[in-house]
């Protein structure tokens, strides 16, 4: 029907009366990095575990390569998983860990050896083949888990929070390495993460989940620029919301809290009576010393970040907003006293009207 490698069709998972995943439909394409993103407890691990076969959907079907695998045991599915704790077998050497899955497939010894060497090469662990897991660092253990799963040549590699157990510096390096690895082996990666920057940096497409429901499925740029609702806008990066006080469907003229009457670049498409907000990202706003133009505001804290600053200001209406100031504006702002009167410009071209 489709060329999707994994099809999740109307899948619902209930634990007793609690619904962990609700009516989720997702197609995962060959060769892509797909991220399941959402806050803690939103059901992303449960969804991943249903693909691996450790949980059975209460309703709906899961197809791998067009075949219904809903009732197939995990050891018979053509997918492999990298666990959050890595779950490297402590009593086996690195090479034995990687060979384990191949032994389960009853491959001949020579072929196992060859594939183990190749997998270790892919994750740059060739020199560590005979080490025991407790002689490895966290990052190396993760690579053992990767090699072990990749050695089986799965159709899809599943990764549950692959970077969460690493320290910050290694995490950034591993992001790139994982993407490179995926490009070189060519199998689809489905990764679970609660870190939006990780999802944006690594994934080709991202599914945002909330309370078990799929909120939006899109590529990172679309997700960031055109969030489907306030939850996604807020979860993916920083955002300021302004309540829409008055609008006419089909008209670009709206009245917005704190900003007053403004003209949007595109007409509002929502039905009359809906509760709407205007969402503007901090980088599409600018703070400068007061010169009588823009929205009057009071300067709050300036959080210097080196290449930019996060500036907190309170608008005349009393609404607090965050503004991302470029390096050009920062010295001026740092020179002002907190509490100084400033003017705020809003780039309405990048404002989005969302259901509030």
């Amino acid at each position, binding site marked *: 029907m489709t060329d999707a490698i994994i099809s999740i069709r109307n899948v619902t998972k209930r634990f007793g009366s609690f619904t962990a995943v609700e009516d989720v439909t997702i197609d995962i394409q060959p060769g892509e990095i797909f991220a399941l993103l959402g806050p803690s407890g939103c059901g992303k691990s449960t969804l991943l575990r249903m693909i691996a076969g*450790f949980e059975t959907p209460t309703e709906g079907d899961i197809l791998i390569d067009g075949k219904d695998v809903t009732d197939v045991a*995990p050891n018979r599915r053509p997918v492999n998983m990298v666990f959050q704790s890595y779950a490297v*077998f402590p009593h086996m050497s690195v090479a034995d860990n990687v060979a*384990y899955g191949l032994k389960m497939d009853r491959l001949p010894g020579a072929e196992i050896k060859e594939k183990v060497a190749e997998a270790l090469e892919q994750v740059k662990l060739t020199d560590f083949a005979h080490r025991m897991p407790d002689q490895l660092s966290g990052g190396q253990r993760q690579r053992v888990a990767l090699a072990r799963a990749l050695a089986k040549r799965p159709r899809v590699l599943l990764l549950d929070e692959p970077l969460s157990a690493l320290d910050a510096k290694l995490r950034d390096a591993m992001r790139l390495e994982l993407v490179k690895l995926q490009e070189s082996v060519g199998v689809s990666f489905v990764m679970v993460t609660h870190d939006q920057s990780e999802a944006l940096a690594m994934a080709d497409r991202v599914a945002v989940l909330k309370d078990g429901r799929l909120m939006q499925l899109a590529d990172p740029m679309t997700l960031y620029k055109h969030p489907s609702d306030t939850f996604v806008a807020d979860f993916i990066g920083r955002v300021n919301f302004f309540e829409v006080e008055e609008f006419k469907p089909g008209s670009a003229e709206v009245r917005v809290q704190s900003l007053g009457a403004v003209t949007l670049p595109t007409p509002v498409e929502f039905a009359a009576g809906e509760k709407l907000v205007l969402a503007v990202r901090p980088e599409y706003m600018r703070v400068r010393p007061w010169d009588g133009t823009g929205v009057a505001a009071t300067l709050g804290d300036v959080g210097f970040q080196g290449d930019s600053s996060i500036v907190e200001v309170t608008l005349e209406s009393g609404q607090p907003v965050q503004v991302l100031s470029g390096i050009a504006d920062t010295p001026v702002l740092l020179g002002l006293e907190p509490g100084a009167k400033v003017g705020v410009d809003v780039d309405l071209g990048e404002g989005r009207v969302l259901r509030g």
Partner: protein
Amino acid sequence: MAKARRNKRGPFEYAHKLSMQTVFVLATIFLYAPIVVLIIFSFNDSRRGGNVIWRGFTTDYYVKAANNASLIEAFVNSLAIAVISTIFAVILGAITAIVLWRFRFPLKPGYEGLVALPIVIPEICMGVAIAVFFSSMGLYVSPGTLWPFNLTNIIIAHITFSFPFAAMVIRTRLNNFNREMEEAAKDLGASEFQVFRDILLPHMKPGLIAGGLLAFTLSLDDFVITFFTSGPDTVTFPVKVYSMVRFSVTPEINAASTVLILITLVLTAIAMRFQSFEEEHK
């Protein structure tokens, strides 16, 4: 400045205090003095083991003990009982531990308590209970039964009281098993049995060894329960020693006991070597 601070004693460094050192030395003496005395006097060239006067070195009593057929028989009985009951205790204990760890079922806390009960029940009560149970069920060993089947009752009794200990030790070990390990193995294609053989069993191994060792030593030196369940013509080492002591304390008993201590020590050492070998190769 750093130097001055180093010389200051930390609040919990009791070991530096003379009083603490004294207590430590006394406790050690208290623990080991009787055993050391027992071993020393097994070489005493005196007719009576209870004799506190050193009359010269001899190994005669080892020879004598080795030639005492009934003592040797008791010794062999004890070893056989310990080996057989340990094997069963470890298997039963492992199964119990896995069931308690793995499955949820109604009244599980109650059942867990029940398994641990033999550990806290006074041994004398266990002894009486098992003896009464055997006789009421008509389970007695007829005279002339082939060795080691004439030890069946004692072996069953030993399994009964030692397997809960093994189960507890193995259960503790299972508690820190990472369930993701099991899922990882399945994910790589392993069946339930392969997961058990390749992943769970190696993880349990230190627990099995420790549990087995515990069961073995418990069985080897058990007196009370054995006393109640042994027939008139099956004697174990502790029971035999007891009857010999009642008659007279000879260095022969010291010698035999020393051998027993040696066996226990060697076994413990082997088990510890085995475990540290495992650690090194992890």
